[in-house]
């Protein structure tokens, strides 16, 4: 670099030198910001790590062998045992304890045909997610038009709807679930309500943003022939936003499957609860079976939803993320 500088220096006019100096100043400042930012990040990270380690129940390096032990303990007696646990088949190790009582949880449809316990739990969790996405999106659908600036002229109605959606979205699901748990006692209903309410807020926001970006020409045409508000929305706006709505619906469904699993783990039923109990009691074959089932379900749901979204809206709204 210095050789080039020496070579180039005499060629610079006074204006050129000013520009050159200014550029150097800017580059130096930029470097300073970058280094400062990195130092700040490093300090924040190390103090955070120290704090987390101090306030944890066990220290990181003391507990690290336990983590390894825990994963080692997950090894079942033989690798067919998780399969037996998954399909509720009797285990050769059955000693009457909870650890190997695989056939216990069978849900009989008829005399001979049963759904294995974990599949039934998984269906319960999926139903919680799908039903609350359905309820949430129905209300989100109804509310989003009231929040959209291009459809609803009344500023107050718009303001009220948007604030309502924001408040509903801001509450963590766990708070809503805990409140309804106090009223309904344990079970999936509090989870459904919590996820639905949160979904109303989250989807309502996505929906009204889609509506605000809609093409207004069909709506104008309908207005010109004297259609009322409902007709204008139903025939002018809904057909063009429906694919995007469906895409967001599917995305929300993915998120809600995870959310309802977590809510299950704190007492709202479904596979989450089963998993927590099984890990807590150290049932290795059951844990592996549940984790495998959950993993496959999540992959399947994600893949299906991605495929369907791709078909519905193509690359355009191929959004990805877990959201809040």
């Amino acid at each position, binding site marked *: 670099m210095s050789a080039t500088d020496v070579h180039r220096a005499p060629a610079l006019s006074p204006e050129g030198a000013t520009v050159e100096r200014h550029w150097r100043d800017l580059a130096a400042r930029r470097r300073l910001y970058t280094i400062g930012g990195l130092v700040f*990040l490093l300090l*924040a*990270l190390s103090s*955070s*790590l120290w*704090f*987390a380690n101090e*306030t*944890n*129940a*066990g220290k*990181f390096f003391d*507990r690290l062998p*336990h*983590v390894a*032990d825990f*994963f080692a303990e997950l090894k079942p007696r033989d690798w067919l045992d998780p399969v037996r646990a998954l399909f509720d088949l009797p285990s050769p190790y059955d000693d009457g304890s909870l650890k190997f009582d695989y056939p216990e949880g069978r849900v009989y449809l008829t005399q001979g045909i049963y759904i294995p316990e974990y599949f039934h739990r998984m269906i*319960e969790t999926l*139903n919680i997610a*799908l*039903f609350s996405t*359905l309820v949430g999106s129905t209300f989100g659908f109804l509310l989003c038009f009231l929040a959209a600036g291009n459809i609803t002229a009344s500023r107050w109605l718009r303001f009220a709807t948007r604030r309502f959606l924001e408040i509903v979205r*801001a*509450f*963590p699901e*766990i*708070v809503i679930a*805990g*409140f309804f748990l*106090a*009223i*309904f*006692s344990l*079970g999936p*209903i509090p989870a*459904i309500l919590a996820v639905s309410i949160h979904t109303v807020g*989250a989807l309502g*926001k*996505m929906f009204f943003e889609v509506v605000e970006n809609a093409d207004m020409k069909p709506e104008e045409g309908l207005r010109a022939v004297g259609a009322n508000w409902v007709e204008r929305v139903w025939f002018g706006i809904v057909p063009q936003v429906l694919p995007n709505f469906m895409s967001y619906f599917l*995305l929300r469904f993915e998120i809600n499957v*995870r*959310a309802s699993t*977590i809510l299950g783990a*704190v007492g709202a039923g479904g596979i989450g609860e089963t*998993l*927590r109990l099984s*890990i807590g009691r150290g049932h290795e074959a059951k844990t592996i079976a549940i*984790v495998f089932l*959950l*993993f496959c379900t*999540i*992959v399947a749901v994600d893949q299906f939803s991605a495929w369907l979204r791709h078909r519905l809206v193509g690359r355009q*709204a*191929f*959004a*990805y*993320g*877990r*959201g*809040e």
Partner: protein
Amino acid sequence: MNADAIDDIAARHPDAFRRSLWKRYATPLGVLLCILYTFYCAWFFSVGAVLEKANWNLAGAYLADWVSYEIRPDIEFKDNYLTIDYSRFSKLGSNPDPDWVTKQMAVIERRVDAAPTPAIATNKSSQDSFMAPGAPTAENPAAAPGQPVPAAPETVREKAVVAADVVLGNGRIAITPNLVTVTRGDESVIFDIARDSSVTPRTPLPAWIEQRRPGSTAYVSFGFLGRAEVQDDEVIAWRRFFGWANFVFDTNSPFWGKPISEAASLIVSGARIDSSRSNAALAWDNVLNNAEWQHGDVWLKLLQTIVMAFVGTVLASIVAFPLAFLAARNVTPSRIANQVTKRFFDFQRSVDMLIWALFFTRGFGPGPLAGMSAIFFTDTGTLGKLYSEALENIDDKQREGIRSVGATPAMVQRYGVLPQVLPVFLSQSLYFWESNTRSATIIGAVGAGGIGLKLWEAMRTNTNWANVFYMVLLILLVVFIFDNISSYLRRKLMGTIANGNDERRARLPPAAQIA
């Protein structure tokens, strides 16, 4: 418009008039399916039975508890006098004497039996004996602990409460040992009390008083601000007050119950209450260790949640960064390396955050280490996937340019690739930082540290709804602050991208879309 014209239009737009069967019936079919599914779910979750069993009265009371609290004087009938107690953890501190409970004192004669005497027994259940042993109470000066218990029945003369008047919102209850007058608005009902046997109203009961059987307990409602139960041996009144009681200092603090100016001057310039430290230090310690609100613990747990989200996201970004280069088709030519890394990302992402959280809680013990590891493992996968997608979308011209002047492969990445993707990477990390602040609250409830567990425990006990609301407000505040910081930084980053290349802005993977 006549039939010909319509036919003409129909001929010109066949797709609008003769739509396929699928197009025509898709919408009603979808709606029908949704309705059927709703019925199925109602059956699957037995919604009807659950709604029937639901305790809706509790809902109102719990919601009211978020922003208000109740004081419960408990007025017990004796032969010719009354005793007034407050619940053990009364918000009024030891020795409560609120001005809405008026007492009429008189000197009376009463028989004192051999132990346990009624007076001592009552006193034990009241808060006085726990909070301030040895302090004689206003209601029962003679019954102070420490007084020798008489061994044989005898008659003593002493001052005692002979009538009490409790004001509850728009109503009042006047109580004497055998007569209770309940007034709400301009209606009033007089109850005759036969001690330990019956409660009898003299007039028919209005709608706001309920007595399930003649002679049994009467339930009196004064609206939001109060309720009462008239029993055959005592009257229990609940008066509701708006606000959070004892939010700053609890009843054990020397600063409790003082007006702000007095407490402030005591802290700034008063004589030392505790000789070993200044008043300010004592006040701060009292605030942190407030027994009812547990500020110190709540703030510590909140900080843990913030730290969990921050460390988890930063570490995940750091690990995902090199792996993303390995996973990107256009950066690493090896198909095997691409696929292995990508499947690894998918695996981490699809093992739900809950599973990681449960695993690490088991391993590290409850605390933020478990939560941050869970976030780290999940988000390494998520961020890795997003990063590699961003890398695969880069503009190839810059790389070619750098390569053409003879740069080493590392230099090509540094000057040809990194400037394009770095803002995108940062923006996505910021978005996940924001989103993880929310997730960290939720996974905390399964034991992975932070405020989640504390919040969940407070909710499950059903008594501390004001504390729940306090924690929820803190969480909302933190989420709001981090949302704003993150979206401010992201807007600045997007700005740099937009200035450089419009097309690339459009290609940003819209992770941030589903906020």
